[in-house]
């Protein structure tokens, strides 16, 4: 985790101090761009930086041209690059595998030998932000003219590794306003946010992680209460880990006067699946809504297409987390949950009745939502058969 490195702390202190000691806003932006490049180079290395820089140049040029075909081509290139680096082996197995196992094996081997062991650092975040930019410019948004500001938008170091996924109009407005003059409260509240993030990550998430890792091999022999405690630990671990990371990113940006979008809003208080996805990894779910679900037709093409579009969108959300079937299944699981959540009231008799009950007793909605979400984490973290077995054990002595 980059934020827990000593290097990050030293870097952040030096950069924030120097940034605010500079006497002109223009100089601050130049300095920030340079600092972001140093940060990216330090953690990604030249090989990890090169593909991102190329995509960045292509995205900038396509955006400046404002031509539809250029934006589409650039989006294709970005998504293709992401698929190549992160999903090539998975996609070969998924698409070619069922047709010809031998060919799939051969292609997978070639891909493994050609590609680096790990994809370039933060490539998913980069690609999602590039696609967002190109999409918005394609539909008439104002492209970023200044290459410097475009660079800062792309590799803004606090959000480089784990988001939140930024939107360029809000980011640039915030950068323009926030970098104008030093505001003490930004520093104070940014540091407080960072401290909260580290507490969540190091004190809570890392200990829960240890608990989960230690108890997982013995899950079957645990008592029923302990199995549920395990599930709770698993669920809070991912929340604390990820939201802690987001807090640090948001806090670090705040030190530079920039407001990043919120990523979490007490998701375990959600009373429905829809509510959950408005509170969990908000920057990703809103990105998927705007650039996958709505372009697919959203809820405009009838109930069947609405459900299908939702399932596709959630499969993409799942796949975004990594090239593995359990992530896809987790996404589809949530897609199905959301479909059920948004259509149940149309079921004759039972639908309206259930709706009334849930309105009268919100606790039922909350419990069932959290049960659904928490059980879903088993699918997220473990292969489907293991997850199924664990879920079964939660309901048997």
């Amino acid at each position, binding site marked *: 985790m980059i934020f827990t490195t000593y290097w990050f702390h*030293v870097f952040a202190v030096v950069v924030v101090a120097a940034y605010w000691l500079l006497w002109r806003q223009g100089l601050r932006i130049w300095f920030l761009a340079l600092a972001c490049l140093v940060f990216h180079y330090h953690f990604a290395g030249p090989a990890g930086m090169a593909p991102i820089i190329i995509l960045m140049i292509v995205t900038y040029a396509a955006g400046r041209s404002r031509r539809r075909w250029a934006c589409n081509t650039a989006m294709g290139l970005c998504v293709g690059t992401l698929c190549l680096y992160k999903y090539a082996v998975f996609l070969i197995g998924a698409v070619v595998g069922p047709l010809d196992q031998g060919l799939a094996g051969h292609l997978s081997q070639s891909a493994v030998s050609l590609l680096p062991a790990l994809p370039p650092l933060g490539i998913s975040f980069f690609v999602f932000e590039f696609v967002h930019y190109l999409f918005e410019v394609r539909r008439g948004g104002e492209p970023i003219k200044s290459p410097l500001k475009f660079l800062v938008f792309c590799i803004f170091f606090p959000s480089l590794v784990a988001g939140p996924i930024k939107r360029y109009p809000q980011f640039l407005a915030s950068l323009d306003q926030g970098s104008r003059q030093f*505001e003490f409260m930004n520093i104070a509240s940014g540091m407080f946010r960072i401290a909260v993030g580290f507490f969540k990550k190091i004190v809570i998430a890392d200990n829960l992680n240890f608990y989960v890792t230690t108890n997982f091999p013995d899950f079957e022999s645990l008592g029923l209460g302990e199995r549920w405690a395990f599930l709770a630990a698993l669920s809070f671990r991912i929340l604390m880990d990820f939201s802690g990371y987001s807090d640090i990113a948001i806090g670090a940006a705040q030190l530079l006067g920039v407001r990043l979008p919120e990523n979490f809003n007490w998701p375990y208080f959600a009373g429905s699946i829809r509510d959950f996805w408005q509170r969990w990894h908000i920057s990703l779910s809103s990105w998927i809504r705007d650039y996958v679900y709505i372009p697919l037709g959203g809820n405009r093409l009838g109930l069947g297409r609405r459900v299908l579009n939702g399932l596709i969108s959630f499969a993409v959300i799942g796949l975004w987390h990594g090239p593995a079937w359990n992530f896809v299944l987790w996404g589809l699981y949530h897609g199905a949950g959301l479909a059920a959540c948004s259509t149940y009231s149309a079921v004759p008799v039972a639908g309206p009745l259930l709706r009334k009950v849930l309105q009268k007793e919100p606790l039922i909605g909350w419990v069932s939502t959290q049960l659904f979400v928490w059980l879903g984490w088993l699918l997220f973290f473990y292969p489907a058969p293991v997850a199924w077995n664990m879920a079964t054990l939660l309901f048997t002595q």
Partner: protein
Amino acid sequence: MSTPEKPTGPARLMSPLGFALGMAAGLALLAWKGREVAAHDWHAGFTRFHPMISPEAMYEPTVDEMCSIVRARCRPDQVLVVIGGNSILLGVGQPADKMWTRQLQDNLGDRYAVVNLAFRGAAPNDAGAVVAEALRNEFPRQIYVANEIPFQSGSPIGIETYRFALLDAYFKGRLLPWKPRDRAISSYLRATDYRDFGVMDLEVGAKLDSWLYFHNFWNWISYNYHFTFGTPLMPHAPEAFWPRSRFEDKENDFDSIPFETRFTPQVVATDLNIARSYTAAFYRQNRDKSWTREADALDSFLRSARAEFPDPLKRRTLILVGRNNPYYTKQLEPEIQARDELAIADTLGALESLGYGAVGYGRDFSEEDFGDRSHLTTSGGAKLAAIVASKLEAMAGELNYIKP
């Protein structure tokens, strides 16, 4: 940021300058505390680094902390004997009250102070060696003791697990300049895989710690007040969060474990293979069943053993070279036993030619002196202590530490 948040609560009373000064003062206070706490020994009743105060339980003692352990146990008028090396010298298999180093202390008497800073799996030049070197001016009359197996010496920077101590001392300027080690450290820190953030960060962390002393501070908290996370050796709450001072030294006592439990058929088969190949890589057999050393075996060993310790420290370094449990060696063919003896003699000779003190042990040890293939029981520890005491006294005389 469009509109900065309006301060609320106590923040309304905070001025930017006050905040900055408060931050700086807080950091300075913590750094001072980190420095101050390690000036005193907090390991009351220390005998050795048992697992709960060792890296296997995520406790990495700092060099300052270990130096304080030494200072609290060695008077300026005593010859300091620091025991380093691996689990054999740590005394695994011997309970704390019957450790071989206690026997060694008794054998040497009050003119010497023996401090056991060995760790499981450590190389000869790991933690204990670093501490002894860091204390070379404070305790100029010192002898460092470690162990090796025939023809094998480690890297100039030891093994990864204990490198925290080396880097701690290195970046605090506590070590002698020694080119092989300096080059190895530099190459280790620069050989960057861009995703290995841990290694990338070691240098920055160690340099920061040399100013802020946060490792001392957290170890002090962890040992005396509260540990902050579960570890494989203590996974469950509330014990996982107990201060490490609450854990006693509970090493196994080989003498209380039946022979059949220690020497199961599977263990015997594995260890017999290890014993058979103990020195096999370094010699080839002649037609008359005698042995000729492999061409590069000695040169290679001399090269690495030369680089292992700085030249000025070699004379005060005693390397012990051990034999296997006779339970195994007796099962080997006579010519293999002869090869092992030859290898031990060659290794001792090579070490002495480089200026180290060197002594072998285990020749007249019985099966009861070993708890397994290489670790010693209490009786074996006593025999080792006798051998080491006699060698240490000789070295102390040669080094003019003690007048005969």
